[in-house]
């Protein structure tokens, strides 16, 4: 095997005479293949002279520098940067016949690692994963962002307290964030890692050339056939986190003589269970792209990709359950016919097809226009246990049947339930012991009992009592996008973009499995019908009363939402030797309308059926920023933004499954943000220190919960929709990232995040429910959240670590990470005046202020430390590169909670006091448990 020493250069000096200027020129080639490398940036360290290599790898520029020693810096993403000392003297022109650039294997590996890891986390099985922002980040030279992406993301740390709805993911300029939640659906492109390494990342609110962007920045993933390096790659990964195995193969032709380029990738990720028990993983991905360079001005690219993904889900656990079953416990599965079956499966099948046109209008001016179409379904299954049959007596209908929640961790199955009374009897203790034994030994879903019950019911002419229900969302999304870029002068770049999006979103429940029965009666078994309502309340569709449904049928709810979004942005960027700055503006319009396809029994007529009132929302945005270069090594960077954002579909309709109601008081969220950074860069050390302040106002949120503290309604027991508006929150803090290159092979690095995210007001809150008419409010209609922390990962994170890169093509790194100040998500209902009311809706008669304070104290999770190790090695065998990459996370197997939330089931003073007096609460906080020691190993061959 050929060994590469650090740098060897074939230099040939040619002597020319020139009046005033020096000419520096040369040819840049791949150190291994000796093929020319285009678009390599070549600069002289004075900073004012730079150029890019052309398609044949050559470059040339003229300078009028004074004689003396300089450094020529040759750099390109993915290659090790070359620093060539040069001497300019006596009017000698310099010509480098060959400058070999070595592929930065380490960086590439780290990049693979990052994308792979984030893929792992983004496709996690709990809802927290959706918020994870690491997929937005890309391998950068920023020590803080690298720490956030590699090591902090496993614990759901959110840089600046921002989550994925605060960032934008674009693929070939097409925005991929969903209108439903504002968040990207990471699974849509899961498993395409090797095809997604070309990324343009914009940090925070600084200027992006494809979008106005957002607080957490934007990433434009370039999936154009011509942009992939020619060659292929096959890899296999093994892990015990989410999937157990991943196979991936890709091949890119590069641009051929006829102007064609093709690129393709297939992958499969699978596993019967990941770190958490019963979390199956079954995903196949395919990507195909073809590009034709029609002429120098026009290129047309077709890209399509499809990641079909099925995941078994887990759930957050209470301390009681964790203590009995450990952090891998997942109540959602049970054995059926000797095989593991998870009742909560998430299936995502949303292929994307896009056509991109790249047009160089005139010199330095481009217009990139794309159309994209995404369609498909997302389905989440769960067990329904309210199956009934209809009895008609005396011309009156009644529905009999229904069973209790079959979840093994249902609160009435747990020891705490038997000890709920103030003075438990001997039998209570005995029962608690029996319950504990049963839960420890079994504690999984009993599929057989459900099949048996349905079989019995069917034999007697009844319907399924238990069934598997899928909540299905079917999207058809069309996007048109056009981005204009013009480099007006050497110093000024103009950007503009226009985007139109049209979404047809259809939602329904689908009967997935009758679990041994023949029919399911499509009524709401919780409906409180009486002789006046004549069984109508229970109807999911009054136009099809008492319908029996079979597998594959739609039932329960069915509605469509039409959404349109039009937006445009414009931006000017100015670059001068001492200062760079930009200004950008956006304007947008959003439209939503629901069309009910079922006439819900609780909401007859056009309250649920037919078209809702349309919701129209206008938005705007302004931002500006500047980078001041104190010297070549020191920069100051400042960004300021003020913009509004339309609420997602999710928060727009207060109870979209049942009716046409719009959430009242809904206005666009308004954001004010400023950040300022000091950046120091030298060959020896890099440092960035950033302070940020973000204020979001008029935020909104919607949640669904079952509570026994809806004081004044049915003794307080109600399933409610909780609509929160006018949320004002502040994120502020400091970020520090630094690196020291102690030796050429050894680097120390550190990252620190000190942040705070808290509510800055007492937001408006109201509740709706099919048990009540109109809106239910408590007291002043507010929830007293002011100064509570907004939950979402640790507010403080610290890292210290090292990387060692051996010249022999192996590397190893380790980090020590400390996390602190993570808070559980507080219950809004508990902080509303419902807390102070008795079940009849009147104020409590006994109430102690200090007790109340202690009951409403927000829980701070324990701080914890995690050690991660990463390393890899690569070889070259002939034309093949072979390598592997491995990480071990949480080496010490530390037990920790990444987050949690309060249960709103009990939210009143008296109930909470009873809970506190219990040894174990019935409805304790629920937590997301961090993984123990896990590994990830990836081996690949590249050619």
């Amino acid at each position, binding site marked *: 095997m050929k060994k590469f020493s650090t740098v060897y250069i074939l230099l040939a000096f040619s002597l020319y005479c020139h009046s005033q200027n020096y000419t520096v020129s040369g040819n840049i080639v791949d150190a291994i293949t000796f093929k020319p490398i285009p678009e390599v940036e070549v600069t002289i360290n004075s900073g004012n002279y730079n150029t890019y290599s052309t398609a044949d790898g050559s470059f040339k520029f003229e300078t009028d520098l004074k004689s003396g020693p300089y450094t020529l810096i040759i750099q390109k993403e993915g290659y090790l940067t070359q620093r060539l000392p040069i001497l300019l003297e006596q009017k000698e022109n310099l010509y480098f016949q060959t400058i070999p650039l070595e592929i930065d294997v380490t960086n590439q590996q780290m990049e693979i690692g990052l994308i792979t890891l984030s893929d792992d986390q983004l496709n996690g099985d709990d809802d927290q994963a959706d918020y994870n922002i690491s997929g937005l980040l890309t391998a950068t030279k920023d020590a803080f962002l690298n720490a956030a992406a590699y090591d902090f993301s496993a614990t759901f740390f959110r840089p600046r307290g921002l989550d994925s709805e605060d960032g934008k993911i674009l693929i070939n300029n097409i925005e991929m964030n969903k209108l439903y939640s504002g968040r990207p659906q990471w699974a849509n492109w899961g498993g395409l890692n090797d095809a997604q390494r070309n990324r343009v990342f914009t940090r925070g609110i600084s200027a992006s050339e494809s979008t106005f962007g957002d607080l957490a920045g934007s990433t434009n993933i370039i999936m154009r056939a011509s942009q992939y390096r020619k060659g292929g790659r096959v890899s296999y990964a093994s892990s015990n986190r989410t999937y157990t195995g991943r196979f991936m193969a890709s091949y890119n032709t590069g641009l051929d003589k006829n102007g064609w380029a093709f690129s393709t990738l297939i992958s499969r990720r699978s596993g019967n269970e990941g770190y958490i028990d019963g979390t199956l993983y079954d995903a196949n991905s395919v990507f195909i792209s073809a590009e034709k360079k029609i002429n120098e001005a026009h290129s047309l690219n077709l890209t399509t990709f499809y990641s079909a993904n099925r995941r078994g889900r887990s759930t957050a656990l209470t301390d009681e359950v964790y203590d009995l079953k450990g952090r891998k416990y997942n109540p959602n599965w049970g054995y059926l016919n000797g095989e593991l079956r998870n009742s909560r499966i998430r299936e995502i099948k949303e292929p994307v097809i896009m056509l991109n046109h790249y047009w160089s209008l005139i010199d330095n001016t481009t217009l990139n226009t794309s159309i994209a179409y995404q369609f498909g379904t997302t389905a989440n299954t769960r067990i329904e246990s309210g199956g009934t049959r209809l009895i008609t007596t005396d011309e009156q209908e009644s529905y009999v049947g229904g*069973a209790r929640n079959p979840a093994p961790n249902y609160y009435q199955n747990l020891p705490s339930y038997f000890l709920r009374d103030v003075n438990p009897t001997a039998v209570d203790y005995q029962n608690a012991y029996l319950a504990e034994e049963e839960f420890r030994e079994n504690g999984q879903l009993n599929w057989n009992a459900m099949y048996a019950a349905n079989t019995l019911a069917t034999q007697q002419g009844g319907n399924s009592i238990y069934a598997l229900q899928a909540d299905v969302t079917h999207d058809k999304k069309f996007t048109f996008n056009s981005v204009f870029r013009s480099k007006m002068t050497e110093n000024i770049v103009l950007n503009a973009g226009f985007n139109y999006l049209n979404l047809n979103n259809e939602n329904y429940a689908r009967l997935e499995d009758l679990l041994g029965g023949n029919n399911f009666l499509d009524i709401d078994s919780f409906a409180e019908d009486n002789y006046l309502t004549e069984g109508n309340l229970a109807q999911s569709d009054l136009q099809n009363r008492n319908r029996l449904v079979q597998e594959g049928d739609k039932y329960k709810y069915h509605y469509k939402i039409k959404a349109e979004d039009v937006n445009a942005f414009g931006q000017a960027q100015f670059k001068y030797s001492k200062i760079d700055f930009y200004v950008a503006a956006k304007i947008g319009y959003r439209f939503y309308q629901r069309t009910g396809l079922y006439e819900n029994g609780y909401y007859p007529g056009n309250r649920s059926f037919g078209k809702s009132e349309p919701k129209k929302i206008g938005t705007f945005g302004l931002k500006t920023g500047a980078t001041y270069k104190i010297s070549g090594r020191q920069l100051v960077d400042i960004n300021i933004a003020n913009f509004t954002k339309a609420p997602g579909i999710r928060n727009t309709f207060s109870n979209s499954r049942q009716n046409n109601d719009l959430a009242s008081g809904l206005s666009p969220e308004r954001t004010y943000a400023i950040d300022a950074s000091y950046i120091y860069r030298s060959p020896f050390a890099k440092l960035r220190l950033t302070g940020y302040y973000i204020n979001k106002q008029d935020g909104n949120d919607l949640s669904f919960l079952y509570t026994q503290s809806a004081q004044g309604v049915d003794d307080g027991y109600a399933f409610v929709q909780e609509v929160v508006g006018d949320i004002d929150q502040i994120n502020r803090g400091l970020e520090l990232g630094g690196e020291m290159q102690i030796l050429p092979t050894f680097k120390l690095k550190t990252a620190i995040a000190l942040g705070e995210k808290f509510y800055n007001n007492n937001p408006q809150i109201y509740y709706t429910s099919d048990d009540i008419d109109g809106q239910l409010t408590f007291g002043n209609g507010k929830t007293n959240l002011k100064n509570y922390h907004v939950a979402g990962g640790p507010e403080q994170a610290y890292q210290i670590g090292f990387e060692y890169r051996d010249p022999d093509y192996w590397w190893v790194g380790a980090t020590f990470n400390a996390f602190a100040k993570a808070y559980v998500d507080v219950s809004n209902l508990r902080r509303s005046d419902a807390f102070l009311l008795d079940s009849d809706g009147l104020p409590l008669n006994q109430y102690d202020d200090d007790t109340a304070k202690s009951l409403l104290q927000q829980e701070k999770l324990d701080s914890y430390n995690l050690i991660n190790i990463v390393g890899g090695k690569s070889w070259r065998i002939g034309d093949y590169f072979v390598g592997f990459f491995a990480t071990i996370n949480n080496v010490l197997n530390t037990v920790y909670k990444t987050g949690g939330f309060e249960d709103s089931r009990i939210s009143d003073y008296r109930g909470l006091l009873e809970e506190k007096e219990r040894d174990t609460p019935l409805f304790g906080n629920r937590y997301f448990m961090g993984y123990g020691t896990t590994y990830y190993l990836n081996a690949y061959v590249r050619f």
Partner: protein
Amino acid sequence: MKKYIALLLIFSSCVHDDNFKVPEVIFEKQPKPVNIASITAVKGNLAQVEDGIFTFSDPDIFIEGYVISNDEAGNFFEELVLQDKPTNPTAGIVLQVDVNPLFTKYEFGRKVYIKLEGLTATIVNGTVQLGVRDNGTIAPLQASLIDEYITRSEEVAEIIPLEIEITEFSDDLENLFIQLKNVQFNRKIALGENRKTFASEATDAFDGERLLESCNSRGRTIVSTSTYSNFRAMLLPQGSGSVQGVLSRDFYDEFFVVNINSPADIDFSNEQRCDTERLTCGLATTAGDTILFQDDFEDQKKNKPVSGNGWTNFIESGSSEWEAYTAESANASQGISAKIDSYSSDDTNSIAWLITPPIQLDTLSKATLHFETSNSFADSSDLEVLFSTDWDGNPETITTATWGIVSSAYITQDDDYFGDWFGSGLVDLSCETGEIYIAFKYYGNGRDANDGTYELDNVKITGQ
């Protein structure tokens, strides 16, 4: 080619999560226990102990029984009612189990064996029940123990309900599946504007108790429905016919109740009710000038039976009788008034009549009735105002004469304030012909829930 096969294998590597088949063994056959005791024997064990609670300690002894309760409609909760035979049962018992629902495993008619060792029998809410000893009483069997204690037989029997009359109810028949034929809900709760639901009236706490009466005999009983049942908000069926259900006792063990499994247990397909005839003249706006009969009871002797002035005071059943009384303070009489109750009577059935002298209607162009009533703890006792035009005035023929209901007369209701007197309204009698008798008929018995008091005063019949 091999490459493609390898690829195919990788992509088809199975994740077992889809296309699950219905498990084959739904019913695991379990061996039939050897030592089987009868439910009667269990009740016998309990009867022999003085403190009224008996814990079984003999190993391997089981009882066998057939499930006659069904919690599908939510009218039974965490209990299995078992009887010894599918037809002509002789003994029944309740097993308290901390499992909900039970019908998905222990359906109606299923034969089961209950292991007795460790279980305790005692009387709860008036019936014999099995459970786990909890100091002086029992608690439900914990869910994780049910497979150990309850063995399902393969047999699912057709349960033939035991056909009986309400008047035949006895402790021995408790927890048996019975059928009452030719019965109806009392007209006050089944007909008209005050038609009630099974158990969702504002006054229903835990159970809705609805008066069921027999058309064959004078029996009356209560159909008791949980306020958690699925059919709680259904209106009571209006016709007459049969009811089947589990015979039990009310929560306070004061009277018998019938617990139905679902509304389908009531077959009132006969639209004809067996209500007696009604007086349908409605109310009059003005009274006649001539007083045909009146009594304000001022001439009666205190604490003596009402007599004279043409009254017929008749005890049909039991020992309670209309008598004159006075009272002061909050629950005052109006001077001397008449009253009846069955408090401390020990009667199993108290039925008493107070009948006016006959009024000849044929000579009158107009006739009206007015009276006042009050009550004290009326509970489930009842006062009715009846009329007859064929009675001959002989006390012995009272029960064979035809009595109709004076339906427009207001009689005080249980939820009226006990201290007040309520006027009946000016009841028009003029649509009847011939000689008419007006009767005040009381139903009650010696139990706390049915021993209420009714008070009567200022009875006045006028004509013109």
